[in-house]
């Protein structure tokens, strides 16, 4: 890295981290960056909890018989695993952590449009988490994360309502965050930051926010109906009272299919940022990538029925949903092709975030293409509700969303903490995650095609070998998650001081110091360049707070 461009000041710089040291200054903060950190700690905790459930599930499945836990406990484990990972990790993960931290900086704003609402959304989220955790400690829930009635309404003897209430409440935090981001992007862009100069991460966040606002209320109502059916028997899902259990599936997936895109669109935004930075090229086909996010958000609302191909839904409805599912695959394909083309004639470095992004493309590709097996009506009949589906959505959720989350964590770690992480360890961990992931989930595609149904506590002996492979992979994957936890925490104290722009990147977040000052910039930036316009370090203006850091430290 070259030398600093702004003269060194004497007094220690105020950053968002040292602006207030008390616990209260954190819990009552209105700073979007601190709220992002609050979310980071919360969702990482829930990832750990969900991971413990996953570990127990994989251990139980080592043998065809039930031995480690009881059938009832096993059913609770996969239910809690799904609920924790989906509602308390994946959905809030990238939007609430990196969206909160970065979105205002990326558009050159001081904060989000409604800072108080932003803090409220964290408290709402934690309240929801509290209810769900109460339910978990009281005895858990065993309906599957999908809550299908009449099992959930008339048969399950577990904490359905408390858990549902937790998800119901947490949903409002998702709505508030989405609302905040949309208003922020519309009204708070810095002068010169036109729509087509926005980083693609912002476009992805915008599309995600649309889904959060439009979809989440439907889930809320659906869960409310389950609670009402369970308590007073309003008869909307119970056929004996004139209801229809399949109606629930329509309502549930009307939210939960778009929710897949809440989880994966922000990841795509992250990948666009990382690919551009580490190949030092503008994203090929910027507008196609930007609009494909919106296309996914909109068409994503029209495909829910592909979860009901064997639910006695009309054959013609099935055809329509199948057709639309292929339509929504095209924008995802556009992104993959454009990312690949971006690499062409780039200047590519192999830093850890880039390894995660490249891993994302490969795994998302497999996840997406196997999704098309499931959208093919006649094929879905065979593989629906088998491990094929389990493997498919883990390729999207873990191979996609989680890898992007880890990539984002490494990429913006210097910005968030002011410290560099150890690159060698990080590359090694990325490799371990990639290998462990594939060993865990690839065998599950085969299991599924062989006919192994999902949510099985015991299974036919011929499936054992593939289950053992999967469990072995899971233990490697666990190592891949523990490693970053160790070296990232270590780097908080011991890591080299990070410069404002360790990667020679282009976003406005790299034009301010690491970590940024509370107000993000010393003065409002005036944007005269497009996204991903790479320039030599000397020409990049720093409009961050005060002293740029010990600049002799290299980032690469």
């Amino acid at each position, binding site marked *: 890295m070259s030398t600093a461009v702004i003269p060194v000041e004497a007094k220690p710089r105020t950053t968002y981290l040292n602006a207030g040291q008390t616990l209260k200054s954190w819990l009552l903060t209105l700073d979007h960056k601190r709220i992002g950190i609050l979310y980071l700690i919360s969702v990482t905790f829930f990832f750990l909890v969900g991971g413990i459930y996953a570990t127990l599930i994989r251990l139980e499945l080592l043998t065809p018989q039930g031995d480690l836990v009881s059938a009832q406990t096993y059913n609770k484990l996969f239910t809690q695993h799904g609920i924790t990972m989906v509602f308390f990790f994946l959905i809030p993960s990238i939007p609430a952590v990196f969206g909160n931290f970065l979105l205002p900086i990326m558009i050159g704003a001081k904060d989000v449009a409604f800072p108080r609402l932003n803090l409220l959304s964290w408290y709402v989220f934690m309240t929801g988490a509290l209810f769900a955790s109460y339910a978990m400690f009281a005895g858990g829930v065993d309906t599957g994360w999908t809550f299908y009635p009449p099992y959930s309404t008339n048969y399950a003897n577990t904490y359905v309502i408390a858990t549902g209430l937790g998800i119901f409440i947490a949903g409002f935090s998702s709505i508030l965050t989405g609302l905040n981001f949309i208003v922020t992007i519309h009204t708070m862009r810095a002068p010169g930051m036109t729509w087509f100069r926005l980083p693609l991460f912002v476009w992805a966040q915008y599309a995600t926010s649309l889904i959060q606002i439009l979809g989440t209320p439907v889930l809320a109502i659906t869960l409310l109906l389950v609670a009402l059916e369970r308590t007073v028997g309003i008869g909307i899902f119970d056929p004996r009272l004139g209801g229809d259990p399949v109606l629930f599936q329509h309502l549930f997936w009307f939210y939960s299919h778009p929710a897949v895109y809440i989880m994966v669109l922000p990841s795509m935004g992250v990948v666009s940022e990382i690919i551009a930075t580490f190949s030092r090229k503008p994203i090929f086909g910027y507008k196609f990538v930007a609009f494909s996010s919106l296309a996914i958000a909109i068409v994503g609302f029209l495909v829910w029925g592909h979860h009901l191909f064997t639910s006695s839904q009309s054959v*013609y409805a099935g055809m329509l949903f199948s057709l639309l599912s292929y339509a929504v695959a095209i924008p995802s394909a556009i992104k993959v092709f454009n990312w690949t083309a971006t690499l062409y004639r780039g200047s590519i470095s192999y830093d850890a975030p880039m390894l995660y992004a490249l891993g994302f493309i490969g795994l998302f590709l497999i996840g997406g293409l196997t999704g098309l097996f499931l959208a093919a009506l006649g094929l879905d009949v065979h593989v629906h509700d088998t491990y094929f589906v389990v493997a498919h959505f883990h390729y999207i959720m873990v191979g996609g969303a989680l890898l992007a989350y880890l990539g984002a964590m490494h990429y913006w770690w210097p910005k968030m903490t002011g410290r560099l992480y150890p690159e060698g360890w990080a590359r090694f961990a990325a490799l371990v995650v990639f290998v462990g992931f594939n060993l865990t989930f690839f065998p599950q595609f085969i299991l599924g095609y062989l006919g192994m149904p999902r949510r099985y506590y015991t299974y036919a002996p011929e499936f054992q070998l593939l289950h053992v492979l999967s469990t072995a992979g899971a233990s490697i994957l666990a190592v891949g998650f523990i490693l970053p936890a160790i070296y990232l925490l270590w780097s908080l104290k011991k890591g080299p001081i990070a410069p404002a722009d360790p990667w020679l990147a282009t976003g406005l977040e790299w034009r301010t110091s690491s970590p940024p000052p509370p107000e993000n910039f010393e003065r409002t930036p005036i944007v005269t360049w497009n996204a991903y316009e790479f320039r030599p370090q000397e020409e990049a203006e720093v409009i961050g707070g005060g002293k740029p850091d010990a600049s002799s430290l290299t980032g690469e």
Partner: protein
Amino acid sequence: MPEQASTIAQQVDALFYYWLGITLFFTVLIVAAIILFVVKYRRRAPGEIPRPIFGSMKLETIWIVIPFLIAMSLFVWGAKVYFAQYRIPKDALDIYVVGKQWMWKMQHPTGQREINELHVPMGRKIRLTMTTEDVIHSFYIPDFRVKMDVVPGRYTQMWFEATKPGRYHLFCAEYCGMNHSRMTGTVIVMRPDEYQAWLSGNTSQLSPAQQGEQLFQTLGCTTCHLNGGRDAGGRGPQLAGIFGKPVQLEGGQTVVADENYLRESILNPSAKIVAGYSAIMPTYQGQVSEEQLLQLIAYIKSLSPQSGNAAMTSANAAQAASSPNGQRR
């Protein structure tokens, strides 16, 4: 690959191999391109900045249109197989299935009952009419590549034609509570002569239709549903010959008298009133079990010999799905 033991299995597998090929092609294409670029264009000097390339309309068009066309081929093929799976043939052997936590109960047309086992002859189309006493289950035979959810409050149907004698897994594929993973069984495919021997070896009780006839007497249905209907002084419509036929309703609509219509008319008689009759029939909800309901319907079917095997068509199934039991108009 699992065993291909039904006429559908090869069709599903052919589709699978087609898309597996396409998947491999695109995966190899993209991964190879990534590896090539990443190696060839690796960073040579820390400060280097390559010449920007912003995009290409031509390339974008190519990689939108070609994948779209390929996806459409999969869509059409997938829909074709789906129709083969779910278009229920008319000339099939009728077997009734009732799911309950956590077992499968089957009844053959000749009266034999089985639990978690299903004996079927090979080379013959088998039609399953299914319902459940409690939660949703799903009837899944991997080696036949067929699956259908079993939904409370309605009948769903599926069919298959087994092609190889043998024993095959039967799984419940929809999570249904504690012992979901134990709600499994075996489908035993026999040669037709073996099947006949098996049938006669299992002292046949009354057939479902005969049992239905007895129920029809004991429940007192005969007092209102006389042959000849209103013209013969009956307070309820005549049931002989109605199965599979359109029925004129009060208010001008017509429905086809399929299994789901008959079921609704027994459990919730006032939902659809036949034109010219009044809503005086009491509900039998809670008085007849799922199996007895199926027997009553089998009896009514047997009164319409010409259309006795008229299958619930897909379109009717769709209609039933969109107007669940008890929906009043």
